[in-house]
């Protein structure tokens, strides 16, 4: 039997006998991408419910409230008349932020004493907290600058001079790669790779288990050929699945892709090789297919979290870093995002090399284990 025959046999199994395998390897990555695309369609968190407690009720305080209301980041859900009512809305989660303006706010500002507003926020969910803090500072800062300008003008300075004195240093922020801090650009590709990894693990692992369950069938064929054909079949199917996932992300959900096709192909290809080889080794040590599936599913979430894709490696402790370095996803997901958003991944060559080595080691071990098991089983029979 040649490699070609085994691949054909494998495809037959996949599409006729065990369609589950075909669904897992071909469809799930795209389905996941669609899920995530739908989830993050809004892209940024807007209209955070805000409650206002204005104890001042003057023109200045209303101008400040208006500044918050005008920002699309906030939606004023209520104006309350007491501290208790404000706290209660926060407690009941009807509002996630509360703006409290003290009495004599305007008077104090005009007197030149200055005043303080209080912004209360519910930080249990950090995604809300980030949005609130950065936009509130911006709105408050702009407002303060404007009032400061008026006050400095009252010293007899010209308006343009006054603003330069009131805000002598400005910060200009330029965000590269993902200028709108778009959540779907940030997230979708990583989830695609994670789902995809589980799929390759499962499908290639189950296919290899079929061989372990029936070691005698291919006893004439060299072990390296058997493992190679398996890995090859799932490599081809995996590549199709991977590219369809990327196409869904780019075409339907407008994730930018600025990198070259060549780099994408290399990255995807070597990743699938690494995972398919790992799966074929894995198959040797699983009790049954159910266990294999259980491990593949349970592996997905930690692998994603430790890959440095969301929580950066930079902020992990030593233990976290060690785990992170052992995961193929670490060398893939971040590079994919760099390629997509920046068009260039600085760590790509090193990562490709590591994936290749990882894949080769796994492949070699898998062939060795398979050869040994087969020998044992054939000897056992005779």
């Amino acid at each position: 039997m040649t490699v070609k025959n085994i691949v054909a046999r494998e495809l037959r199994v996949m599409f006729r006998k065990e369609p589950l395998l075909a669904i897992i390897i071909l469809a799930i990555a795209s389905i996941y991408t669609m899920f995530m695309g739908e989830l993050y369609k809004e892209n940024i968190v807007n209209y955070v419910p805000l409650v206002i407690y204005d104890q001042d009720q003057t023109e200045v305080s209303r101008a400040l409230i208006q500044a918050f209301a005008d920002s699309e980041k906030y939606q004023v859900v209520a104006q309350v008349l007491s501290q208790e009512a404000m706290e209660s809305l926060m407690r009941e989660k009807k509002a996630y932020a509360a703006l409290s303006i003290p009495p004599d706010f305007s008077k104090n500002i005009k007197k030149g004493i200055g005043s303080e507003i209080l912004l209360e926020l519910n930080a249990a969910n950090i995604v809300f907290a980030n949005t609130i803090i950065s936009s509130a500072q911006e709105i408050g800062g702009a407002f303060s600058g404007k009032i400061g300008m008026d006050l400095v003008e009252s010293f007899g300075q010209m308006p343009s001079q006054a603003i330069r004195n009131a805000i002598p240093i400005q910060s200009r922020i330029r965000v590269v790669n993902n200028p709108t801090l778009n959540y779907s650009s940030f997230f979708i590709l990583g989830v695609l790779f994670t789902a995809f990894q589980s799929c390759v693990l499962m499908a290639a692992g189950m296919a290899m288990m079929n061989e372990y369950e029936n070691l005698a069938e291919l006893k004439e064929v060299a072990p390296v050929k058997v493992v190679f054909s398996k890995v090859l079949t799932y490599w081809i199917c995996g590549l199709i699945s991977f590219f369809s996932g990327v196409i869904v992300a780019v075409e339907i959900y407008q994730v930018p892709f600025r990198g070259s096709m060549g780099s994408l192909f290399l990255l995807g290809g070597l990743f699938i090789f690494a995972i398919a080889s790992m799966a074929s080794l894995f198959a040797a040590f699983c009790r049954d297919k159910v266990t294999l599936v259980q491990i593949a599913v349970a592996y997905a979430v930690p692998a994603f979290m430790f890959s440095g894709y969301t929580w950066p490696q930079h902020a992990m402790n030593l233990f976290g870093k060690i785990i992170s370095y052992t995961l193929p996803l670490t060398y893939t997901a971040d590079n994919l995002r760099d390629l997509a958003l920046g068009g260039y991944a600085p760590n790509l060559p090193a990562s490709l090399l590591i994936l290749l080595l990882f894949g080769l080691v796994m492949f070699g071990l898998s062939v060795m284990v398979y050869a040994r098991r087969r020998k044992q089983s054939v000897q056992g029979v005779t």
Partner: protein
Amino acid sequence: MKLGMIIKREFRKLFIDDRISVILILGIPILYVILFGILYQENSIKYIPTVVYDQDQTQLSRTVIQAFADSEKFGIMSYVTSQEEMEECIRKKTAQVSICIPPDFGKNVKKGLASSVMIEVNGSNILFANSAIGSAQEIISAVSAGVGQKLIEAGGKMPDESLKKVAPLRMGLRVLNNPTYAYTNFILAGMGANGLQVGLILVVGPLINKDYRRLDELKEVASSTLLFGKLLVYWLCGSMAFAVYTLLSIVCFHLPCQGGIASLLLIAGAYVFAVVAIAVFVGTIAPDEVQAAALPLLYIMPALLFSGYIWPKMSMNAFGLGFSLVAPIAYMADNIRDLMLNGYAPHLWRDSLTLYTAGIVLFMISSVLFRWRRSRSSLEQR
């Protein structure tokens, strides 16, 4: 006493014959909590690699840089002397943030012409970007206010008065529930809940499905009694797992626990009940054990992301909301975080009730289906 018999049998099976299942149910959530507890131990992203391009080299520019260096958010990696080098650092990802101070910065500020500092941030990973943008703005406006104060002072005003003129509005921030924005507090409870459902769904589904092959063992027992006995056992195991991992996250990872034990148990019990009911349902409809384990792949990973635990529900579209409506974790994770961090969850009773109702309905559907499949298979046997 049939129910008692079923329960006893199930316990024996779980703890003696099939120990791996109980290890998975208890082990996966605990493992998740340990892994993520370690992963997020640093709690916030500090010392973001920063590159400085100071074209001014004056006392003022150094003050700005010093302010960044003093903040633990930024870690200055290098000082460069050209725009190209700076861009290169961002491109190569040796730095995530660059601070560029224009020539004549100090001179312009002193002349009263104002000037700006340019901050470039790599937005690929939103976690870096959010953290960097927020604190950069804070630092710059603090330095700016200080400088502005001096400028007005130069006009012959008293220092205190000057400061109040240039920064008339101060913003007090009161951060509730998670004042240090600790990442562990934000995420750990949800990760544990996710681990719990992964363990339960992956294990219970295939175990229920397995019983189709041993139907003659339990011929006299009604389908609903049989399933209910199983459900009770896994409910207990799941609740135990919850107790263990919650205790672990409080003791080892310092997760605050403000809520009462009764409230925690109320929502956790409802959640485990609903999840087990889903697993029983999956086990009932799946054609075989492997598929019973593989089917939930489509549910498990998106469930946490769609639950509103991280990405808020108010920023989801109809599809996302629809998905979060049917995922038990969407009714549990947010409540458990509120209970842990705040001691009070506004939707506790409503959500617990929803989970129990959904669980009961699903369980009834499952027992009808189970009875039908059982009668069909016994007909076939005859």
